[in-house]
Structure formats: structure tokens, C-alpha cells
């Protein structure tokens, strides 16, 4: 269990540096997460931060709403870059549950692996995971683009509504269960597809958007090696004939 710290016990830790060229360094071995987040909430466009000794702490760099660059040197806990709105957050390490949950725009990049529910409910922006992602990657995604260099776990893109999920490795069981209008591209194997998710033809427009997404993630994979998955749209309405699928 984490310890919630009462608000009055904390103060601002570091003043943001006006000089955009020199990142403000916050060492979380000494400073509380709350000070970092408060400073980020008062940031102006162009500023940058480097976070040292993140130690797997939760809620790092959440609620950013300015075009800033934050580099986290180490592992992040739950909800890193949660509700991200602008700028870039890069985690040089692994990220815990709910990486970039509900991201609106901007970019979040993890060089290692991400735990379950990465980019859950994201409305926009780009989430890049160089390693693997756990279960429920892109669950209820609403417009975010996700590029995973490795494999993803089971129930990924569950109830995915909009956006694109690109997987350069393999996908686990029940991919795209109850999916709406999101598009999924998988280079490797799919253990099984969830309810109402089917393979679909990879047409020119899909190759083009896939090439763009891979380039944005800094990858060199060949779009033609991927397969596309999406909704069969058979469960969009309650119908007696679908009763075994409910």
C-alpha cells in the first residue's frame, strides 16, 4: 500500500528553470512526487525536466498540460504520465500499471516494458513501448495511437473504441474483445481473438497509416508484414440471435 501524504506537509521542491536549454533535475530520492507534479502543472512551453531515482514511484508526471519534455531515468510505478495532454514524457526503464492512462495528446515513450492497462482509455496522442506490454494494453482506447515493440498480453484492446494499436510482436488471448471502431495491427501471432473481433484486409490506406505510426515510433518494421484486426460489428445491437455472445 502506498502512503498518501497530507497536503500541508509538502512544499514546492524545485523551481522550474527559466532556461529551456538546461533541464531542471529533480532527485526523487530526496524530493516528494507532489512537488514535481505541482511544478509541472505550473510549467510553460519549452521547459524540460530530468527525474532521477524515480524508484518505481506512482503517479509520476501526471496531468501535464504544457509542451514540456520530461525524462524519467529509471523505473516508474502506476499511472506514469497519466492524463497526459501536451509535450513528451520518456521513461528510461519500465513502467507500471496504467501507463499514460487517458492520454489526450502528446507523446509518452517507455524504453523498457509496460505493465497492464497501458494507455487505457487514451483519447489521443502517441504511446510508444519499446519492450513488451502486459494484459489489457489499450483497453477502452478512445483515439490514442499505441506502438508496442514486443508482445502484448491478454484482453488487449478490450472494448477499444477508436485509435490504432500496433504490435510488432505477438498478441495474447482475446485480442480486441467487444471492440468498436479501433484498428489493430499485429506483426506476429495472435493467441485468440475476442468476441466480435475479426481479421480484416490490409489495404493501401492501412499500409500507409501503419508506415506513419511505425515511423513516428522510430521503428523500421515493414508494414506489409502485419495483419489487421477490427470489429465485425455484429454485437452493436441487442438481438436475440446474439444471446450466446452476451
Amino acid at each position, binding site marked *: 500500500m502506498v502512503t*498518501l501524504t497530507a*497536503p500541508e506537509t509538502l512544499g514546492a521542491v524545485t523551481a522550474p528553470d527559466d532556461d529551456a536549454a538546461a533541464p531542471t533535475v529533480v532527485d526523487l530520492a530526496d524530493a516528494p512526487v507532489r512537488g514535481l507534479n505541482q511544478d509541472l502543472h505550473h510549467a510553460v512551453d519549452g521547459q524540460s525536466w530530468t527525474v532521477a531515482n524515480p524508484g518505481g514511484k506512482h503517479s509520476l508526471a*501526471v*496531468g501535464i498540460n504544457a509542451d514540456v519534455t520530461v525524462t524519467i531515468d529509471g523505473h516508474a510505478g*502506476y499511472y506514469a504520465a497519466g492524463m497526459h495532454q501536451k509535450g513528451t514524457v520518456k521513461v528510461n526503464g519500465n513502467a507500471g500499471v496504467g501507463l499514460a492512462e487517458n492520454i489526450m495528446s502528446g507523446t509518452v515513450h517507455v524504453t523498457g516494458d509496460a505493465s497492464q492497462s497501458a494507455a487505457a482509455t487514451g*483519447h489521443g496522442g502517441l504511446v510508444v513501448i519499446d519492450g513488451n506490454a502486459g494484459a*489489457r494494453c489499450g483497453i477502452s482506447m478512445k483515439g490514442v495511437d499505441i506502438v508496442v515493440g514486443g508482445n502484448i498480453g491478454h484482453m488487449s484492446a478490450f472494448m477499444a473504441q477508436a485509435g490504432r494499436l500496433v504490435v510488432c510482436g505477438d498478441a495474447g488471448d482475446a485480442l480486441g474483445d467487444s471492440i468498436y471502431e479501433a484498428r489493430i495491427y499485429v506483426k506476429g501471432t495472435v493467441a485468440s481473438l475476442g468476441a466480435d473481433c475479426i481479421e480484416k484486409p490490409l489495404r493501401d490506406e492501412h499500409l500507409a497509416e501503419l508506415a506513419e505510426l511505425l515511423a513516428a515510433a522510430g521503428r523500421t518494421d515493414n508494414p506489409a508484414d502485419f495483419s489487421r484486426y477490427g470489429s465485425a460489428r455484429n454485437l452493436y445491437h441487442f438481438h436475440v440471435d446474439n444471446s450466446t455472445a452476451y
Partner: protein
Amino acid sequence: MTITSIPVPTAAPTQDIAELGLRESATFDRATIADIQRAAATGVYDIRGWGAKRKVPHFDDLLFLGASMSRYPLEGYREKCDTDVVLGDRHASRPLHLQTPVTIAGMSFGALSANAKEALGRGASEVGTSTTTGDGGMTPEERGQSKHLVYQYLPSRYGMNPDDLRKADAIEIVLGQGAKPGGGGMLLGQKITERVAGMRTLPVGIDQRSASRHPDWTGPDDLEIKIGELREITDWKTPIYVKIGASRPYYDTALAVKSGADVVVLDGMQGGTAATQQVFIENVGIPTLAAIPQAVQALQELGMHRKVQLIVSGGIRTGADVAKAMALGADAVAIGTAALIALGDNDPRYAAEYADLGSAAGFYDDFQDGRDPAGITTQDPELASRLDPVAAGKRLANYLRVLTMEAQTIARACGKSHLHNLEPEDLVALTIEASAMARVPLAGTSWIPGVQGSF
């Protein structure tokens, strides 16, 4: 429900059925027979709005012991009986301070028309209480008209965004709803208009089924971290509520408190819904009356009663209900169904139109169909335009004032200078069931079944 498959008699029977010596089955009553016929005709379960309609032990089964010799009453119109309540001062730097403990429960734009949401905001703001968003995001109409707006954080996260989160006066993490603990929301295609679909990022016209589990946390340990994230995003300013549907309120309340909630919202099975399977509404969850003492016990055992506030909803209709819920230990209550009725839901003036829909004023619960003659549970522009948000808001404000004054009347009679001073000792029960659930003595005795073994 709507009876669509059964021939409707052209003229009502003129003779009293009982006079003919006909006997209705208690097990297979007419509503049950109609349910079976409807299921056989359609092959799909019945979906409807409203809460549990079955009779369950309720506040009606409790009575107050007014003051006389051993207790002093307050003078009815002169001595002050305060009604204000502070919600969320455990961790948040900006708690809500409401003038009445009667708040408006979460109801979505989508389930309700924009005019209805505006009317709820107007009515609540006029009397200094809060209103709550629902499973469809925050609308400008609602934010603009609501002095105190609670923003729901639901499993679907439809329309969830950090800008609205920061605009909210409180955040309510919804785990469940009394009408359907363990179930997600539904909004059928008739109500998924372009605007509703856009706010929820869904195709227009589909039958939308919301998730029943949160996508990025599971269990109380995760919830504690999730609450921490929301506090970080809102700089620890905004109170965070946790809403539970009443099923195991003792454990759920304790876990919500341990997870760091500022406020626990407890919704009993009579609490309403916009669209849920009837079998779910009527058979899952426990009555509000049974839920309150369990939640209060959990708060007291943790030493958090009155520190983490308890808001109770599910079947609040009168000031007596408000006073009884508070005497049992609630800090505030929330109304949903009653608020819609105050706006104009089930108004007899639309009797002919309810009949056309196969229903009647006082019975209409097909909120999922979007054809509400009163213009409240609809997205049809023509029907929605029937509800004047200013006039409807005024009716709601009137009703909220009546609830508050009625509760004060009872509190003064019990000698209380604040509604919060009402206590279980002020109550007795009329039935053994209510006595056992509410943990107050059966009237005229000192017996509480389950607490004491004998009279």
C-alpha cells in the same frame, strides 16, 4: 416495461374483477404473467429504467420519538436548526460546503436531455447543493448552471478528460450503483444521437454497454494508488468520493476509507437507473435501510464517522426519509428518481401519451426508449424542448426546500439544533424486519433482532 406484444383491450372492463369471484395468483400476478408473455414474444430480457419496484423494508417502517418530558424539543419556527454540510475535508484543500444535505445523484447527459441536466443544475444551485454528472462526460450546460458539480469517474471513462477533471468541484469514483451492483451502464441506440455518440467516442445509434470494471485498477490497493493519481492531477484540491452499490457495504465502506476516499456514497437497491435489465434491478443488491447501519458501523470502527462523510441514496422521497437516513448516521443524502419527478417525470398531464407508449403516469419507466413525453429521459429534440429548464429548475428548488424544511421539522421535534445531531436513539421500527436492518428497537420494546436475543 412496455407491453408491446399483448393485445390491449379496447374498453376497460366495467365490472370489478374480484366481484366475479376471480382470484389473482400471488405468485403469478398480472405483471409476472405479462413478463413471461413479453419474454416469450421477444426472446430478449426486459430492459427498463427506475429502481427496484418490489416492496422492501424502507424508511416508512421507521418512526421518530419526538421530545416530551425526558427530551426538550426546539421551538418550531424560532430556534435554529442548521442543515449545512461540509463534504470532503479529510484530504482535499477545497471541500464542498453545501447549504442542505440533499444533493442530486449522478445522471448522465445521454440518459437525460441537455435541458433536464440544466434544470438539475439550476434547481440544485438555487438552494446551495450539488449536482452530479454521469456516464457521458460533463456538458457545458451542466457546468455552467451548477454551482457545485461532482464529476463522475466511471469504468467507461466516456468523455473523461483532465480539463473537466480540474473544473470539477468533487470527483466521484463510481464502483457501483444500487440498481445494479456489479453491472455497467447501458444506453440503447435510440438515445445515441450524434452529440451523445461524439461525447462517448461511439458510433451513432449503437446499443452501448458500459464496462462494469475499471480499466486500470482492480481492488482496494490499486484504488488507493488511483486516488493518489487523481489527487496529484488536481493538486490535492478536489474532494474524492467513492460510490458503491449496496451489497456488502460494511466491507466496501471500510475498503473505500482505507483507499483514501474523502466521502463514501452508498446507493441502495431502490436507487434508479436509466436502463438496466429488470432481473438485475429487482434481484441484486440490498435495501437502503439495511445498508446504512453496516456502512456507519464500518466508519465508526475505523474512527472515521463524520470525518469521511457518508452520502446515502436510493428511495429518498420526503424530508422524513432525509431525517431518518441522517439519524442512522448519514451526513447527506442524494436524490435521483425524486428529482426527475420534481422536474416533471410521470406527470399526469401526459396521461394520453403515456397510454400511447403502453404505460401510464405513475408507472412510466421506459427511460431507455428515449420517447419520454415529459422531455427528460430523451434525446429527441422535439420532446426535450417540452421541458423548460428554468421552470423545471424552479420546481426542483421548491422540492429541495420542502425536503429540507420537513427534515428540520422532525429534527426540532427531537430537540436537535442541527440535522447531524439526529441519532439512532431517536428512532424506532414498526416491523421486526426493519428493526433488524436499521438496528433500532421495535416500537414499544427494547428489542433489536440480531443485536439482543430477547425482548
